[in-house]
């Protein structure tokens, strides 16, 4: 079967095929959130005292914060006491290093190779996170030869405490916002990555997050540090089982880009979006931020958001180093009852800094899709430059598409441009396809892929095919 036939077949079936549950013995800590729970999480992870104190401090700050309600979202009430904050698959005591075959099977089913021999040499190194713990990280040795550290966050705390301590919460402070504070208090696992000076990472690094257990939340923490003149391309993927109740996912990603370093961060977000009536799904409330710390540094965000019942996510860049640059490329698709409020912030502080924002929103069904962005030109951002383009595509008359940009300039030499358009797939385009024997749904898929091409083409090869298919599946049933 050719690739395009497969796409059509999947398009017509169009179900959430990652929605299965892995039946594996798991250990939990009790439901609820208080200082004892945080101490338990910290103890289970055998953390040093300073990290426990960091968590407790964040928790105290979080308690004093109200949940933000400025987003264009109809947010359900989240009972933070009704969530299990830590769930981990049990390990075989006699063979603690072995991966449970059931877990291996799960990731295999999801197309995530956990065994190094399964992949072509030098393709992708994976850190696989299952609920609250990292199952395994592949290619660690190969990477270590180059001095690259790529491991789970928990291991990094144990093996490289100085690095973690030096960079943790420097980009997203614990008190940054409500969900970041919550994450700082209860974060479980995630990935840590350090690229030393002048090293070009020989393969794509990738994290895969899987929620499995019922009644839990996932709170991962990712920290990426690219030292002077280094390069890394990092990818992130995620899925969860289909359930009637909603599950919370509140992550924090911090990226530090030193002088002349280059980081490319790509996400394909495919959390369970809930069923056609809006029941269940993941509440995806994440804080992602990078800092271009040194001069000439570069950070590029690419995201394809197709999943989650609610998405609240603004990958941002602080352009501190002179002549640093950043880009944000996004495709956000909402269908049925999904809601997304996503965008970016570009904070220009350094001289000659440049940023570019390309956001493509697609709404179908009765979904609401918002772009929210901030571009700020600081006093010292001499000759800084920004260009933003935010397009929205509406499919059906019951969905909404919104654009909320905020442009602040305090510098007479800075230039900011923003433009946005909203449109629908025209009858002419559909008719053209139909008369050439392309069915309505397939035609929509074709048009949407063309519309999102500028962003999709920025994705690493491994992701691009996946993302195109996802777009089609996400829009299944939205026509006619």
């Amino acid at each position, binding site marked *: 079967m050719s690739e395009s036939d497969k796409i059509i077949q999947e398009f017509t079936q169009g179900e959430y095929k990652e929605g299965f549950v892995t039946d594996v013995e798991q250990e939990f800590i009790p439901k609820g959130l208080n200082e004892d729970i945080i101490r338990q999480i910290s103890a289970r992870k055998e953390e040093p005292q300073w990290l426990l104190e960091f968590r407790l401090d964040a928790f105290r700050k979080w308690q004093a914060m109200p949940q933000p309600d400025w987003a264009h979202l109809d947010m359900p009430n989240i009972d933070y006491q009704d969530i299990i904050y830590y769930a981990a698959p049990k390990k075989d005591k006699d063979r603690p290093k072995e991966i449970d075959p059931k877990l291996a099977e799960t990731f295999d089913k999801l197309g995530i190779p956990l065994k190094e021999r399964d992949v072509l040499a030098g393709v992708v190194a994976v850190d696989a996170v299952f609920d609250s713990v990292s199952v395994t990280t592949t290619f660690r040795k190969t990477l270590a030869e180059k001095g690259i550290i790529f491991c789970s966050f928990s291991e990094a705390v144990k093996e490289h405490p100085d690095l973690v301590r030096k960079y943790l919460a420097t980009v997203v402070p614990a008190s940054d916002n409500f969900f970041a504070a919550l994450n700082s208090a209860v974060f479980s696992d995630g990935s840590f990555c350090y690229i030393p000076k002048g090293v070009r990472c020989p393969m794509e690094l990738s994290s895969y997050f899987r929620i499995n257990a019922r009644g839990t939340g996932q709170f991962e923490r990712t920290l990426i540090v690219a030292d002077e003149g280094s390069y890394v391309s990092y990818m992130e993927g995620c899925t969860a089982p289909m359930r009637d109740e909603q599950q919370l996912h509140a992550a924090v990603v911090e990226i530090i880009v030193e002088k002349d370093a280059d980081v490319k961060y790509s996400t394909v977000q495919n959390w369970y979006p809930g069923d056609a009536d809006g029941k269940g799904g993941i509440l995806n409330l994440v804080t992602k931020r990078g800092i271009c710390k040194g001069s000439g540094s570069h950070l590029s965000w690419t995201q394809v958001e197709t999943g989650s019942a609610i998405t609240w996510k603004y990958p941002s860049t602080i352009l501190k180093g002179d002549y640093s640059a950043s880009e944000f490329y996004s495709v956000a698709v909402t269908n049925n009852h999904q809601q997304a409020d996503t965008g970016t912030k570009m904070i220009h502080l350094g001289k000659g800094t440049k940023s570019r924002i390309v956001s493509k929103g697609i709404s179908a069904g009765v979904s609401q899709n918002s772009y929210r962005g901030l571009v700020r030109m600081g006093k010292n951002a001499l000759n800084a430059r920004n260009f933003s383009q935010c397009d929205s595509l*509406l499919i059906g008359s019951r969905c909404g598409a919104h654009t909320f940009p905020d442009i602040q300039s*305090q510098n*007479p030499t800075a230039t900011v441009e923003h433009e946005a358009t909203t449109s*629908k797939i025209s009858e002419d385009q559909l008719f053209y396809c139909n008369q050439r024997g392309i069915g309505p749904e397939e035609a929509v898929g074709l048009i949407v892929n063309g519309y999102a091409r500028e962003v999709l083409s920025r994705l690493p090869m491994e992701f691009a095919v996946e993302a195109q298919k996802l777009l089609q599946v996400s829009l299944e049933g939205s026509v006619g």
Partner: protein
Amino acid sequence: MGHGKYIAPPKGEYQVGAGERLDLQYIVLPGESREIEITVDLDGPGAQAHIKALYLCKGNEKVRFRIVMHHRAPGCKSTQLINGIAGGEADVRFDGTIVVAPDAQQTEAYQENHNIVLTENAKVDTKPQLEIYADDVKCSHGATVGQLNADELFYMRSRGIPESEARTLQMLSFLSPVIPAGREEEVEKAVRSL
């Protein structure tokens, strides 16, 4: 017409019925701090609203535009064009929202806000927003914050036009789409005073 130095009253709520057309124009000249707050409801099919505004600042003026444009009926059209130049220590904010209701099909709504920042201490904050709940719409907005084009300036100077005159010409051409008829001289005088 002719409320002091600006044309329409600075605060107002307007209902525009079927087939009607509303035109609003504003001028804010140097030395004036203004808060312009308008809400327009396009209530009937085929209603139209067109807003043009111009501002010039050179001191510590505070200029605010808060424009809400509701498209509540099908086939309505609205345009907004707000151009201005911020010098001195001016603080300018534009807050514009277009809301297209679920049944307001065949809507055309355009919103543009262009700003030039002349001095280090001037501040411009622009928030052009779209909230769209209907699918058969043509909506776009654009916002820019920048400075006078150096290439244009060079072109004119290389042809013997003195710098200050060249800058005035640039500013006038930037403002020309929003200068109301009969107010050209007044605006030119204000531009020269920047």
